[in-house]
């Protein structure tokens, strides 16, 4: 079947493609209904990667946070019309037992497998009318969950993935640096899955006030040290991530563990002397896998959790054609509020 698709072909330039969908025996056709734009999508949109990387990526469909409905499933796992979220991190069946062997490790998993495909990174994303997708990587949206809110499943799964990276006892005091969407989702999610105290650190007082953590601090506040943070998550990214990481290094207890979640395009300078002196450990996390998505959906069934997450949903932007799609990217670029717009595809 032919379907419309928007591919980025050069910085700030989308082209309309008509793709022919050919379903493999283990795939279903999904009509994309809702999606959200991620920071990585914005980097591709602006061309904020090195030229050679972009040369390998373009042309490509962006977007990896999406929900849709089943149009055709010859495997019979899903009914036509059933709402699903799409897990963007996929591993082809014959690649599960590769030489890297991280897929079955609880602290790592499929999202660290070098053979994995990730939609809108090394695989076409969901900026299209329809996608043929492996049924193993489609998850049914519970009936009490609005499909547009389900677009947050990906970010919640990333928070869950970041949590399982460390094998925590459950009572540690955790600091989350970053007053953006991921910082909000991580600190909110920790309130539901972790018993210890949750502290957030950021620069925007108005945004911090909206956080669900036990305590909020402006960056640089000397009282952060009194919280005796054993664990810290950096959710800042970009050019300010060095500042955040160095503050964490200063504020965390001796022997503390630091998890880095933000992407900085440039190499950044961090205080390695203090890392050594305090015996700190740094962990990297990226993306999430199907199990994390399943846990995210379980959380999202909880109406209280839904109520905590839904303030992040700012506006619903209807995408009738490619000009609306351009507008949505430009609007997200200028978005300074806590939250993101959801794109409703009406192609």
């Amino acid at each position, binding site marked *: 079947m*032919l379907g*419309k698709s928007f591919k980025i072909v050069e910085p700030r330039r989308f082209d309309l493609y008509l*793709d*022919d969908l050919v379903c493999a025996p283990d795939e279903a*056709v999904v009509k994309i209904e809702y999606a959200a734009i991620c920071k990585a999508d914005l980097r591709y949109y602006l061309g904020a990667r090195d030229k050679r990387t972009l040369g390998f990526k373009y042309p490509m469909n962006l977007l990896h946070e999406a929900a849709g409905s089943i*149009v055709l499933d010859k495997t019979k796992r899903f009914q036509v019309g059933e709402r699903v979220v799409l897990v963007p991190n996929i591993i082809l069946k014959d690649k599960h037992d590769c030489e890297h062997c991280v897929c079955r490790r609880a602290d790592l998993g499929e999202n660290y497998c070098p053979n994995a495909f990730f939609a809108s990174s090394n695989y*076409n994303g969901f900026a299209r*009318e329809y996608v043929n997708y492996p049924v193993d990587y489609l998850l049914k949206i519970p009936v009490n969950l609005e499909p547009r809110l389900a677009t947050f499943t990906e970010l919640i799964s990333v928070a869950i993935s970041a949590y399982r990276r460390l094998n925590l006892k459950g009572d540690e005091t955790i600091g989350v640096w970053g007053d953006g969407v991921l910082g909000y989702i991580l600190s909110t999610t920790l309130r539901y899955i972790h018993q210890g105290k949750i502290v957030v650190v950021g620069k925007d007082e108005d945004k911090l006030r909206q956080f669900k953590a036990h305590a909020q601090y402006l960056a640089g506040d000397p009282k952060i040290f009194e919280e005796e943070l054993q664990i810290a998550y950096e959710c800042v990214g970009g050019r300010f991530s060095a500042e955040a990481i160095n503050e964490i290094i200063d504020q965390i207890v001796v022997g503390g563990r630091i998890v880095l979640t933000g992407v900085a395009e440039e190499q950044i300078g961090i205080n390695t002397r203090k890392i050594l002196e305090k015996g700190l450990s740094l962990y990297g996390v990226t993306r999430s896998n199907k199990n994390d998505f399943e846990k995210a959906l379980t959380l999202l069934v909880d109406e209280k959790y839904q109520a905590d997450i839904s303030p992040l949903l700012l506006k619903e932007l209807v995408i009738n054609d490619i000009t609306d799609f351009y507008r949505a990217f430009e609007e997200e670029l200028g978005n300074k509020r806590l939250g993101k717009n959801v794109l409703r595809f009406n192609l």
Partner: protein
Amino acid sequence: MNIAVILAGGTGSRMGIVDKPKQFIDVYGKPIIVHTLEVFDNHPEIDAIAVVCLSEWLDDLRILLRKYEINKVKWLIEGGETRQLSVYNAVKTLTPECADDDVIVVHDSVRPLVTHKIISNNIAAAKQYGAVDTVVPSVDTIVRSVDGESIKEVPLRKELYLGQTPQSFRLSLLRLAHEKARAENNLNSTDDCQLVLDLGEEVHLVPGEKLNFKITSFDDLLLLKAVIKLGKTEML
């Protein structure tokens, strides 16, 4: 029920190809009619499909339905000598098996770029109004000439639309329109909406899309091939 009637009775005389009708021409590994049928077959609101086809191509069509696993086709109907007769044959076939208020979505097999949105809007509007036509506003100025040599008039562009398909109707209304036309010996209409208008009924407009164009000439075929860029660009 919502039933699609796909018209595949044309011979494609304007294409120059003599060995097959235009709807059976292959475009990137699939005949045009299969591209069209797949859109309807995968549409969740379409319950069944009737294809009106040239009698000598019915077997070829059966083979294609099997090969491409098009499952909703319930009726294969022999085409008539004219478009009007083809639609009338479909109406006759469907009448004993369908309800009067079932929606009939009539579509050209050679408009493969019809979208689910257009079909959904047709169904919703046909249920509400009884008869709808898919149109796009005319971006070109249209001139009217009677003798083909000089302009008779230049109608106001903002009042002009280009008719596409689908055209969708409540079955009872479509049947009535065709029966009246036959009774009045009006047998060569190219447009079912005109027949409904002749009944004194209103026909509402549904927005179409420029890409939902009809493949009638080699230029159109070239355009179709140009716009279908197969998505084989994944970095593996």
